[in-house]
Each structure stands twice: as structure tokens, then as C-alpha cells.
């Protein structure tokens, strides 16, 4: 004897086999997209933190004029500028390290006429007139150049925005597809079982009595498929992270997702299932309203 409230043989429908597949694939793709977007955000945040609050001043070496003097002049200008939190000379040894790989092992780096670099950290929310600062620096230390990384940062930000936009589009597309699939499954269920639904109605069943069965079915099927899809996606990400070392040095910092990001990813199947439940409820009630 079936439990009361399971009069509709939904579990035997084609949709019982269809929904988990769709949900699984959707959650799989959504998880990958979400992971990609979160990763891009993390990378961007790291770069931004590293670069956004900083300037670099370059004081070229010039035969004839002593470098230390000009360095001091530039540092003095920077220190009296409102909004500058710190200004520090990059030690010559670090510069040599940076340049060495480009010159070949045999080069006598020590003899190179390298420019001096001053790293400047800005106070938070500082609003500097960079052009004016640049002029003052050049006046104080002829040849000094100000680099605010703006171009580089803009490029990075644009790439990250593009990744995020694509990921968001994918997630949105998936949500729409999911709603369409659930709506379709429900409408199909109603069509297949139209007679049963009508009889239940005429016998005195409330809309909620019928809607509950469809919503529960959609929820269970979506959750089931979603968990499988999530597992597949996480395995894939893990495998990629594993294989990442084998790819050799890549221009990406080593990155881990935060706990919050993992929680977000883990919640995808549940979110999909709840979404399916709501979509089912809405569809059923809308369809039932049309019956007398």
C-alpha cells in the first residue's frame, strides 16, 4: 500500500531518471564556473593587495651625478607628500637578483649601471595627484620616473572581470536551464498524470496535496543528481590541482580557496534542490489554478 500522499507515481516517470542527470550536469558545471570565478577573484585580490597601494619611483643611474644624492632628494619629496605611508629604497642586491636572469650567468652584474628603485606604499584611501608628484620628483631628482602600475592593474582587473562575467553568465544560464528543466519535468508530470490530478481534484484534494508530491519529487531528484555532480566537479578540481605541479612553472601564484568559498561550492546542490522545489511548486500551482 503506498503511503498516503504519494498517489502520483512520479518516481516511476521518465523524469525520475531525467532530473538527476540534468541536476548533476548543471551542478557540475555551476561548481566549476563558481570555482573558476572564486579563483579569479582570489588571484585578483592578491595582485591588487600587492600592487594597488604602491608606487615605484625609478631613479636612473647617470654617469657624473652621484646616485645617493638623487635618491635622497626623491625620498625627501616622497616623505613630505601627504598620503604616502612609506617610501623605501630597494637594496641593490635585490635589483641585481631581478636583472640577473636576463643577462646570462656570466654577466658581471655588479658592474651594471642599474637604476635605483624606491618602493612607495600609500596610505589607505589616499588620493594623490600623481602628475604633480611626478613633476616634483623630476625637479628634485632629474630623470626620476613615477610608475603607478595602473596599466598593469587595469589589464589584470579587466581579465578578472571577464572571467567573472563568463562564470556568472554560465551560472545564470545554468539556473535558467535548471528552472526550465524542472518546469518541464513538472509540466510533463502533470501532463502524464493529468487524469490522476483531475480525479484527485474532483474527489476533494487540495492543491497543496498535489503540489507537495511534485515538489518533493523534484527536490529529491535534484538533490540526488546535484550531490553526484558536485562530487564529480570537486574530483576534477582536485585532479587539476594535483596535475598543476606537473605543468611546470606557471605565471599564477599558489592559491587556496577560503573556507567560505568552499562552503559556497558545497551548498550548490542544496541550493539547486531548493530552487527545483520552488520551481516545481510554482509550476504546479500555476497549472492547477487553470483547473475548475
Amino acid at each position, binding site marked *: *500500500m*503506498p503511503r498516503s500522499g504519494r*498517489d502520483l507515481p512520479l518516481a516511476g516517470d521518465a523524469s525520475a531518471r531525467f532530473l538527476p542527470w540534468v541536476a548533476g550536469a548543471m551542478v557540475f558545471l555551476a561548481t566549476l564556473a563558481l570555482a573558476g570565478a572564486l579563483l579569479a577573484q582570489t588571484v585578483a585580490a592578491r595582485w591588487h593587495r600587492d600592487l594597488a597601494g604602491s608606487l615605484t619611483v625609478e631613479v636612473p643611474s647617470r654617469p657624473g651625478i652621484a646616485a645617493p644624492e638623487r635618491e635622497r632628494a626623491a625620498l625627501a619629496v616622497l616623505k613630505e607628500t601627504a598620503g604616502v605611508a612609506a617610501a623605501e629604497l630597494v637594496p641593490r642586491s635585490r635589483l641585481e637578483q631581478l636583472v640577473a636572469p636576463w643577462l646570462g650567468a656570466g654577466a658581471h652584474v655588479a658592474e651594471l649601471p642599474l637604476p635605483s628603485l624606491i618602493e612607495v606604499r600609500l596610505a589607505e584611501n589616499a588620493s594623490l595627484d600623481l602628475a604633480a608628484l611626478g613633476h616634483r620628483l623630476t625637479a628634485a631628482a632629474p630623470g626620476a620616473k613615477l610608475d603607478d602600475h595602473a596599466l598593469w592593474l587595469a589589464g589584470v582587473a579587466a581579465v578578472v572581470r571577464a572571467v567573472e562575467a563568463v562564470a556568472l553568465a554560465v551560472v545564470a544560464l545554468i539556473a535558467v536551464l535548471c528552472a526550465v528543466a524542472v518546469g518541464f519535468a513538472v509540466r510533463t508530470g502533470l501532463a502524464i498524470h493529468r*487524469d490522476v490530478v483531475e480525479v484527485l481534484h474532483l*474527489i*476533494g*484534494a*487540495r492543491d497543496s496535496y498535489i503540489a507537495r508530491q511534485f515538489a518533493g519529487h523534484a527536490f529529491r531528484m535534484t538533490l540526488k543528481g546535484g550531490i553526484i555532480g558536485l562530487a564529480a566537479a570537486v574530483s576534477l578540481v582536485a585532479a587539476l590541482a594535483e596535475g598543476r605541479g606537473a605543468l611546470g612553472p606557471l605565471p599564477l601564484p599558489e592559491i587556496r580557496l577560503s573556507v567560505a568559498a568552499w562552503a559556497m561550492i558545497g551548498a550548490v546542490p542544496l541550493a539547486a534542490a531548493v530552487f527545483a522545489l520552488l520551481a516545481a511548486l510554482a509550476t504546479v500551482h500555476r497549472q492547477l*489554478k487553470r483547473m475548475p
Partner: protein
Amino acid sequence: MVRFEDVSARYGRGPDVLSGLTFELAAGSFHFLTGPSGAGKSTLLRLLYLALRPVTGTIELFERDVAHISRQELPALRRRIGVVFQDFRLIGHLSALDNVALPLRVAGAKEVQIRDHVAELLAWVGLADHLNDLPPTLSGGQQQRIAIARAVIGRPSLLLADEPTGNVDDRIAMRLMYLFEELNKMGTTVVIATHNDGLVARFPHPQLHLEGGHLFRVPGRPRAQKARARA
């Protein structure tokens, strides 16, 4: 119990199927609904179980104007009406027992009260051996009897049966008529649409005769004749 006043009905934009129907059915009455095929018998029953709304006129059911019954109130009202559909409308994946139990379950009855009650009724209509069979695995006449059992299980105040003996032989038809009369004696108002002239001839109840969209009342015969008919 039932009061029609100048009621017309049609489907969509089609022609009027019924027009200007005015009649009353007293609580506890028993009527045959007759008329040629396509006269509107099923349509009239549909008006009574609220699957169709009249185009004009007023229908009162259980002392209430059906035009003012909200969607929320419908389920409760429908539980007081038992219907035998002309095409049975059984639920194919539920056993005979579960089909008949449905009106009780939908109304929230306790499982313990359901089973024995249902099994007893099914035995009465001759289906004791088919309690757990699915409708598609039963014969036409067996299905019809399940449909009847489902309509009467809830002791409805109003019983509407559309051609309830079309698929059974005369012996079973008599048995079913006896069931309807028993219910009627316990207070149920009964309306039975039928083409079976023999049945109408054998039972003394008044007729509602539909023809050309209009209703004609044919009074019942005196009680004496009935006893003879049942013999």
C-alpha cells in the same frame, strides 16, 4: 439540496447544451436522469459536481449559491459529493483498494479505519478477489464497480452516477441499484444518468428527462410496482 434556476450551460464558445433549466431536488430524493445520447446528461451532472460553471442562472447546492463558493472551499464541498464518472477515471497505478480508499485519504482519515471498511464494500460489489489488482488488469465491469465503490465509500450527501451499469450484466446491475437504494435510505440524495430502459422500468423513481436542451420531469410510479420489479 439542489436548486437550479434558469440555468444554461455550454462548453467554451459552443452552442448552449442546456438552457433554461429550473428544478429542485429535495434532500433524500432519488432520480433517474434520462434522455438520448448527447442530450446533456453528463453535462448536467458536471454542473452538479462543480466541474462546469453555468453560463447564466443560479445553482444552489447544500443551500449555497455555487457562484459564491471560493476555490479554497471547493475541496470540502466536493468531499460531500460522490461521483461515478461515465469513463470511470480510476487511478491506474493504485490497487482497487487504494482507489476506493482515496476519498478517505484525501479527507485525512486514519489508515486503521480505512482498510476494513474498503475491503468490505469491495466484497459487496463482487470484487473480494481483486482487492490488490490494478484497474488496467481488471475487466470493464470490474472497473465500473470500483468506480461505484469509490463514489459511495465516503457516504456522500449527494451521489451522482453517470451510466453506472453500462458495462455489467443485469444481475450485477440489480445488485448495484440495491446499493444505491440502501444509501438513499440512509439519507443520500441520488441522481443516476442511464440509458438502460429496463432499469428505469423496474424501479419506481421519478425521472429527469433531457431532450433538446430542456428538462422534463416524469413522476415516479407508486411504491407497489417496485417490489414486483425487484423480484
